[in-house]
């Protein structure tokens, strides 16, 4: 297993290299550049040309990419063209906020999906199953921007229990911090919870009638133990796969939620960098977000082996 993990981690290097190369070429090929964003509408072309030269933006794309990569290898992520702030500092400031959102959302998703999916599967075609599945269908079909606004109308403007928007760091107090993060986390988590609820139910229904589950019952095991230990653990493999993918998708999903709730996370950082064509910032964002995606998938693969000891990755 260790060798497999090391091999996968080493494979990260060409994967990320490929991603950064494609993104570097793509972002440079779309109209606009950071100098235009910096200068706005009112500037003279010779000033823009001089600034492009100053920032090395007039060099061929492949040269710019190699220079960027060279600096990255030495630990220098570059500076944002527009603000002059170091990209790494900015990412380290925004990343924890997004990671907290993602983690919180996954916890909410699991807290919703596991009980609802299991109850639905052990009592199929009953009112509790229909209720859970209807709720899941509503959750899946509700776009995050709409769901978020609905939660605001209910919890903030209706009940007044959570703030409408904004972010307070932990240093402002745990209560303040968590009350500001509650609605963004719920918005992201409930959608993922809806997807996972249907999956848990489906996977549980597949295993619940299997011989080994009946054997466990016939040996006198309590139904609770049969469901959780024998059925649920075996139903988990596809669920874990989808969870891993969901973590990856959440990196993108946070962009919308961070924008709605004004949460200064990595998604918002990325979207601003792209809109202003701030190439070093875009590259930093892509590097981190794609690493999260790839690492989430690696974690899933490792979890497979834990969940199903028959899975072996060595030859």
């Amino acid at each position: 297993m260790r060798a497999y993990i090391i091999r996968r981690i080493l494979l990260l290097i060409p994967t990320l290299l490929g991603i950064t190369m494609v993104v570097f070429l793509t972002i440079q090929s779309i109209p606009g550049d950071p100098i235009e964003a910096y200068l706005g509408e009112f500037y003279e072309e010779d000033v823009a040309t001089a600034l492009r030269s100053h920032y090395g933006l007039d060099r061929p794309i492949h040269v710019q990419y190699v220079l960027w990569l060279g600096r990255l290898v030495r630990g220098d992520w570059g500076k944002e063209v527009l603000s002059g702030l170091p990209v790494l500092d900015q990412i380290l400031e925004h990343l924890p906020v997004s990671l907290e959102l993602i983690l919180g959302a996954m916890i909410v998703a699991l807290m919703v999906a596991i009980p609802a999916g299991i109850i639905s599967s052990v009592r199929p075609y009953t009112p509790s199953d229909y209720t859970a599945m209807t709720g899941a269908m509503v959750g899946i079909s509700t776009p995050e921007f709409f769901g978020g606004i609905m939660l605001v109308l209910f919890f903030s403007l209706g009940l007044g229990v959570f703030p409408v928007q904004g972010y307070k760091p932990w240093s402002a107090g745990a209560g303040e911090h968590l009350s500001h993060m509650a609605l963004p986390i719920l918005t992201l988590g409930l959608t993922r919870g809806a997807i996972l609820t249907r999956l848990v139910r489906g996977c549980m229904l597949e295993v619940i009638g299997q011989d080994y589950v009946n054997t466990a019952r016939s040996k006198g095991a309590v139904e609770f133990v049969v469901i959780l230990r024998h059925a649920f653990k075996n139903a988990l493999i596809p669920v874990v796969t989808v969870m891993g993918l969901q973590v990856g998708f959440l990196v993108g999903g946070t962009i919308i939620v961070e924008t709605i709730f004004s949460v200064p996370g990595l998604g918002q950082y990325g979207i601003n960098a792209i809109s202003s064509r701030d190439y070093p910032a875009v590259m930093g964002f892509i590097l981190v977000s794609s690493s999260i995606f790839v690492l989430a998938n690696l974690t899933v693969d490792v979890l497979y082996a834990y969940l199903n000891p028959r899975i072996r990755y060595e030859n």
Partner: protein
Amino acid sequence: MLPMLITVLSILFLAFSPATDAQGAKRGGTLKVAIEGEAVNLDPLGVGFGRKVYREAIGSGLVRLDGNFNVVGDLAKSWEISDEGRVITFKLHPGGTYHDGTPLDAASVKWNFDIISGKVVPTWVKELKKKSPKYKWRNIFLGYLFHINKVEVLDKYTVRIHQNDVGKAMTLDAMSAAFSRFVLVSPKSYDMNIEKFRRHPVMSGPYKFVEWKRNRHFFAERHKGYFRKGLPYLDRIEFYFMADANQRMNALAAGEIDIINNLPIPLYATAKKTSGVKVLVGPQTMNYAFPINGQRAPWKDKRVRRALSCFGVDRAQIVKTALRGLAKPWVSYSPAGAKDALDLTAECPYDPAKAKALLKEAGYGPGGKPLKVTLTTNNSDPAHIEVSQALKLQFAKLGAAMDIRVVDYATWNRAFVRQRKLQLTLQNTLSSRTANSNSHTIHSKSGIDYYNMKDTEIDRLLDLWRSTIDPQKQIGISHKLQRYILAQGYYPNIASFSFLQATRSDVKGFTNLGKMMLDYTSVWLDR
């Protein structure tokens, strides 16, 4: 005993209640403002609405606007115009300081003018030039203060500017409220370290910079060395970046913020019926237009321009639907709320038959060439999509096919403003006091005349306006200019509309000055 108790309680109440001034304004408190666009950095000598908001909160200039859009003194206590407008002598308020304690005097004002003209080059520019010889820096204010050729310090609080003839009439107008209001930076702080200044600006306005977390918030507090004694009333002002318009409205309704700087038209009705919220509708100083590229087909033909921009547009219908009735159908170049507004709307009635006839004359329509145009707009304003659709339907009635392309702002900006390769677009303009306010879009020598009219008569009229200090003569020239633009069909305007702002009901002393100026100096909270 009871009267004594009442007296003591009254004294205590007065002692601990917020201080008020003669006008009844209460002192203290924190104003929270929602902004929709974030600044790229805090260097005030740059453009962009995000930077403008911050610049005007913490900056001050020589002049500013009052609630009726008149130019009044800011740092300048008074001024005297002489030599047929070529010389302006400003007397400054004494005793003020920049936020770093540098005296706010005539020498520092001269320094600020001299870095515009290039007579003084900031140290950081010299150092960057040493490292990178191609590096070039030009002060943004040069665009409209190009005509100032000499600045003199007469005494500690008197400064005199000498100007060339062409341009002399636009100085006060441009310094108070152009696309980038002229504000003063501390010479000491700006000169040495631009990287630091971009994150920690040092200016001379009513509020002093405290903290900026990009995409999150910008905080400033009362500047004790502010030259207008007794102001500002607030202790602190906080700006919160909220990209989503609905959330800005929700936060205002919940009382989490006090002011929405820019209320989108679709949210006007919601804001109006939200309790505890008031909507500020300023004068109609902005135009909603569909600029054409005068140097590209089919717009080179005046008949096509007149057909589509004048008679082919049902302005009333667009105003009623896409603009929610919050605008006024208007065809002139100067908006309805400008000081030199000239209502020429009656000269362009909606007349599809006349528009078709003009197109036929130009060789388009049945039996002629098919007329196809592409409208490229950006996603910065939700109204753009609705207006595009309405125009498409109206053009179809004239036999003109229109494709709609929606791109992001950066793509649009490059194609429209820089490369000028768009055939047709949509634009809600900056606010204008006069025809000259946004004349960079039409003067062929401005370098940023993205309407691409390239007409020497327009340049001549604008130069004449800029050289005349008599307001009545300026209005006369402006009216000639507006009539000429309409006759040529250069400027396809739809309507004039107001910059909408919304505040909590207990926010007092805030005036809607359109997009021209955002002034929080006299704001106070009735809490």
